[in-house]
């Protein structure tokens, strides 16, 4: 197999080669081109897939990368087309984007904002990427989003759940398909009320950084609204691995519910520790003690093993959904890789398609044109039902899944079962909601 080379400027590859050594220097100002950064001029267009390849989220990053490769295949008309067949917009023809073949470069975010920006910068400056996408944490998403705004390229966020990404740190060139902390709270609360009653005392353990704060706030406010009481909220360091000293005092506090506002390794460890301490076998205030994990990731849940059984949480998407879009995606991903995709893979795949579609509809790669095409865009057939890319904050509004750990998993991928598909209306909020206060989109930036 032989793929084309990855170049900055397609022209150079085909033209200008003859007499290379003798050619007189041509001076180009960076502001030349067609009025925006990295305008594709040849027969190809380069996208930048910036995912964590090292560090704790490397497996999630690997899954994102698989999804992107699949998306590129489908955009270029290879493979079975996946969600292109179910997507409500029919602008994409399977001949690349605007007739240009899609090529891509990859980089490692290391789940550090510095490294992620370095990697994104090299994609923009060296490889001529016209869009950056990916990532598995909000810190990285916010950092790269700001960079893309400055550089004048589009950023399609990967997995990022913090309210801030489309709240106080939103940017005109950035778009998020993934759901957020507020939506988790809004979707979870009714289900929790139905299952555990409206008279509960909750104890929060919260990862001591931005995402943790917004998630704690979201869950607190939505559970308190239905009558729960928050006994305590304790912050835990990011680098904590053993949560025993945070878990142990929970029972003594009189709480009957533990909310773990943790993600990734923190979540695996805190949940494992909580189950170890036998919290779930206890009765407090005459009720069975319960644990809640607001943001579930199937990949991560695997690390917690049997401990997730019966524990409620929310997720953006799950492969067992039975709508046409999800089925098509699972089918083509599973056929290619032999296992079902994760929610991270799904959101990345969808983001890549949405971007391509927006370019196609706008008829241009210029970021401002793409922004215009995506703002207020309504679509369906991508696995989450009818979805709106809201113009005010570039957040997707769609159904949210409430899931719980499956009691009898039939395979290593079958860890979560869908309890409820919370309709979009229930998780929609006003753009000026206090949890999203501050910050401004600004205006789109075409860059150079």
């Amino acid at each position, binding site marked *: 197999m032989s793929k084309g080379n990855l170049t900055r400027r397609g022209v150079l590859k085909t033209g200008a080669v003859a007499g290379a050594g003798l050619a007189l220097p*041509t001076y180009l100002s960076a502001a030349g081109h067609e009025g925006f950064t990295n305008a594709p001029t040849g027969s190809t267009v380069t996208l930048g897939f910036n995912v964590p*390849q090292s560090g704790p989220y*490397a497996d999630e*990053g690997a899954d994102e990368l698989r999804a992107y490769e699949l998306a590129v295949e489908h955009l270029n008309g290879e493979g079975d087309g996946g969600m292109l067949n179910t997507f409500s917009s029919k602008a994409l023809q399977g001949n690349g984007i605007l007739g240009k073949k899609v090529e891509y470069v990859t980089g490692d975010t290391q789940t550090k904002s*510095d*490294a992620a920006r370095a*990697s994104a910068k090299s994609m923009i400056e060296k490889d001529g990427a016209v869009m950056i996408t990916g990532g598995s944490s909000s810190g990285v998403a916010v*950092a790269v989003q700001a960079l893309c705004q400055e550089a004048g390229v589009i950023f399609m966020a990967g997995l990022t759940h913090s309210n801030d990404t489309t709240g106080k*740190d939103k940017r005109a060139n950035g778009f998020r398909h993934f759901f957020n902390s507020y939506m988790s709270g809004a979707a979870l609360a009714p289900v929790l009320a139905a299952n555990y009653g409206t008279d509960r005392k909750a104890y929060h353990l919260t990862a001591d950084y*931005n995402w943790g704060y917004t998630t704690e706030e979201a869950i607190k406010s939505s559970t308190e609204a239905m009558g729960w009481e928050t006994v305590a909220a304790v912050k835990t360091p990011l680098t904590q691995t053993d949560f025993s000293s945070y878990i142990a005092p929970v029972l003594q506090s009189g709480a009957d519910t533990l909310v773990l506002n943790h993600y990734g390794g923190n979540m695996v460890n805190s949940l494992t520790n909580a189950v170890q301490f036998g919290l779930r076998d206890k009765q407090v205030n005459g009720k069975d003690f319960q644990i809640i994990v607001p943001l579930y990731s199937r990949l991560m849940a695997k690390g917690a093993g049997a401990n997730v059984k019966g524990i409620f949480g929310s997720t953006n998407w799950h492969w067992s959904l039975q709508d046409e879009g999800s089925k098509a995606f699972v089918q083509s991903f599973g056929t290619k890789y032999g296992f079902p995709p994760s929610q991270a893979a799904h959101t990345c795949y969808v983001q890549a398609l949405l971007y391509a579609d927006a370019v196609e509809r706008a008829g241009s790669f210029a970021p401002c044109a793409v922004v215009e095409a995506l703002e207020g865009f309504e679509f369906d057939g991508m696995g989450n039902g009818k979805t709106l890319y809201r113009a005010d904050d570039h957040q997707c509004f769609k159904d949210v899944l409430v899931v719980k750990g499956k009691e009898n998993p039939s395979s290593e991928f079958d860890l979560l079962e869908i309890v409820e598909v919370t309709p979009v209306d229930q998780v929609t909020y006003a753009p000026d909601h206090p949890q999203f206060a501050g910050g401004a989109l600004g205006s789109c930036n075409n860059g150079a």
Partner: protein
Amino acid sequence: MFGLNKKDASLLLIVAGLVAFAPFLLNPFPEGSAMAQFNAGYPDLMQRFVIFGIFAIGFNILFGLTGYLSFGHAAFLGVGSYAAVWMFKLLSMNVLPAIVLAVITAGAFALIIGYVSLRRSGIYFSILTLAFAQMSFALAYSVLTPITGGETGLQLALDDPRILESASASEGNIPVPGLFGLEMRDSFEMVMGSWVFTFNFGYYFCAVIMLIAFYLSIRIFRSPFGMMLRAIKSNQQRLNYTGVNPRPYTLAAFVISGMYAGLAGGLMASMDPLAGAERMFWTASGEVVLMTILGGVGTLIGPVLGAGMIKYMENIISKINSDILHGWFAFLPDGLEDLVVTMIYPFIGKGWHLTLGIVFMLVVIFLPGGLVEGGQKLANLFGRKKADNPKSASTEPAE
């Protein structure tokens, strides 16, 4: 020249030449060729080379000369970046006040930490500095979020006051750092045949500062102060009985190298106005230690080479993916192509850490003096028996 002896002056000139022509030297492969992947001549990476070069030069003033191994130097880099970003937020997007404040803040921070840590020596000193840096990181990531931006890092916002620039945010875009009207990201491209060379203002700005920093470090190495520092490393007891008080010398070296780190941090923020707490994590402190050892402890140019090597691997090797590999080896028959790709694949892309680890081990096993020694061996191999090689132009590696 500039008060340097001939040897040092020529070293400085060589470095200046390399830095000035880096956009050419780092882009040896034509665009579109398979080897273009190894080109490093794009602004961000070139900036990183020189910025981390400054960081490592400064670290070497402490570690290379006095032998005090600080394991918390990244804290000063982080503090410098925070200071610079705050200047951008509050004052103006001009980089000069930001960099000046970064250096001063980092220096003050280093003075406090150094004053306390230098009460101990050896590994006890290392752990003290490590502890201070880890505390800085942990607090910056969590409870200090209002000041540091926490997880997402400290960023500019449209509604920042920027008291010296009132009209800048009018377009709905955050202004970018610059120097009296010249933006750091300004660059122009020169196309020569199928080669494209990018000349970036920010890079040259950093490069000039790096050359000044390098020049100062040579002067420090050659000054009585530098000699005292080397004496501290060599025999602190004798120094004491010779009537010299080592403590203020080490403290001065600590503060100077902290200021270098602050300078690097300020420049980083000037090139890319965001300061993240991860910059202060112990791995970041460890990185500059590794850069210095990899390049050659106590040598003038070694730390810069080490910094370049690590940053190159981080940014270039990590971006090679299997697709690119297949592209390279497409000329091979299919089966062989797949085999070669399978064999190389673990070392590139997400496996870049593995390559880095192997390089560390190979360098330290076969080149005890770091890359500088490798360069000498290479020079000797080609028969150019230079009487005054870089090693004798500097001090011996650490003992």
